[in-house]
């Protein structure tokens, strides 16, 4: 595990490390270098712990045991149970649009900017393995029909942000921001009551341009969007956000939906649910009374 790097910002420290499949940052509104380094290391440990435990790419974690159970019941630990409870709630509230079993659809879709779309038969076979309602979930035991797979990607990263932020907040009273690949949480305003200035990335030119700026004193911020993951078919641009009931991308979903809420997980869920509304995303967010940006 490569140790995190530490850089001095204007009057705060920025710790960087790689995790969750992307760049991770922790901003710390304090002056002591050693304390900053210790806190960043703690955030890195938590990020890697959650990544190793819930990533579907690893062969030795709970997700892998569930996906290879072949229909046998699997007893899960308390943390996994809580995440599954949360996923169940999101599935129920989105009337099936938010579904952690929809990961298998990637077997037939590749969003590389090309023009390939799955044929009818292939899609029907994969759709037979999608649907949280097919799963029997009586905490703490999960029983899933063979061939189905769950993927906590839609929740895991935001959960890791909140969890790491909460751990650090217990060890320092200084304000800090935990940012894993754009999903972030600020524990409080910087010294003197100044907010943290958050730049919202331009989905078209990731890394090159900042499209918007959000001043955040406390709370979570998350963005969902398709940046470069889309296909063009019959002249239509189809983002990578799929409707698990039809297996097809949701038409007219915004390029990027950024939501600000009381936790990063809440912001992430709301931005995902909004994107799943396609063109209705803005109205959905307005109704729920959260601060948001749509590009």
């Amino acid at each position, binding site marked *: 595990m490569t140790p995190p790097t530490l850089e001095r910002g204007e009057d705060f420290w920025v710790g960087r490390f790689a995790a969750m499949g992307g760049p991770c940052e922790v901003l710390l509104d304090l002056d002591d270098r050693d304390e900053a380094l210790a806190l960043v290391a703690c955030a890195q440990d938590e990020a890697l712990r959650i990544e190793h435990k819930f990533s579907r790419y690893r062969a030795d974690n709970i997700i892998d045991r569930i996906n290879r159970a072949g229909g046998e019941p699997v007893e899960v630990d*308390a943390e996994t149970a809580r995440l599954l409870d949360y996923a169940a709630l999101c599935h129920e509230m989105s009337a099936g649009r938010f579904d952690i079993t929809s990961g298998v659809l990637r077997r037939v879709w590749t969003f590389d900017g090309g023009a390939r779309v799955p044929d009818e038969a292939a899609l029907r076979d994969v759709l037979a393995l999608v649907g949280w309602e097919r799963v029997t979930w009586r905490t703490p035991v999960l029983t899933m029909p063979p061939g189905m797979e769950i993927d906590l990607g839609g929740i895991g990263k935001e959960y890791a942000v909140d969890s790491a932020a909460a751990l650090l907040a217990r060890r320092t009273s200084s304000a800090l921001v935990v940012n894993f690949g754009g999903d972030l949480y600020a524990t409080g305003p910087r010294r003197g009551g100044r907010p943290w200035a958050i730049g919202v990335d331009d989905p078209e030119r990731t890394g090159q341009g900042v499209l918007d700026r959000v001043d955040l004193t406390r709370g979570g911020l998350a963005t969902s969007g398709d940046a470069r993951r889309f296909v063009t078919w019959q002249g239509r641009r189809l983002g990578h956000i799929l409707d698990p009931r039809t297996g097809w991308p949701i038409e007219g979903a915004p390029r990027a939906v950024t939501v600000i809420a009381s936790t990063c997980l809440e912001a992430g869920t709301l931005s995902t649910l909004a994107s799943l509304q396609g063109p209705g995303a803005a109205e959905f967010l307005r109704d729920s009374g959260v601060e948001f940006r749509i590009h």
Partner: protein
Amino acid sequence: MQRAPRLMIASLLGLALAVAAMPVRAADAPAPAKSASAHAPSFALPDRLGKTVTLDSLAGKVVLLDFWASWCVPCRQSFPWMNALREKYGAKGLAVVAINLDKDRAAADAFLVKNPAAFTVAFDASGKTAEAYRVAAMPSTYVIAKDGTILVRHTGFDPKKTSEVETAIEGALKP
């Protein structure tokens, strides 16, 4: 105007006596729930996720049942303790259920943001469940054995007196 003060005092005493004359009903002292055989009254209440929590659905588990409200100061102090209990005994078959008795749900939600509850929270604005359990003070904590009998009934919250509840839980958890 000499008479005014005497008049004032007389009317004051009259008022006090009037209050006293109101129908006097002996306060029904809470029935002692200490008797081991008392069976825990059942309930069916919504939890934070909108699902219904019932005592029967917890059959086979030892239940720590707590009654609380957002405006009750000792209740806030008991939340970290209940979090710890769930963490320590959750896997061993303890279910922690905290029944909120706030009349205003928003007040309860605001409380839960500041005082995270890593256990099941159910809502009973009518107070019927509390009445069934003869709750005499806030908070009140009950340890209910696997067969539904009330083992311990503890009123108020004193950080120094939590061991009594914990030993009851450990005893009840033994197979």
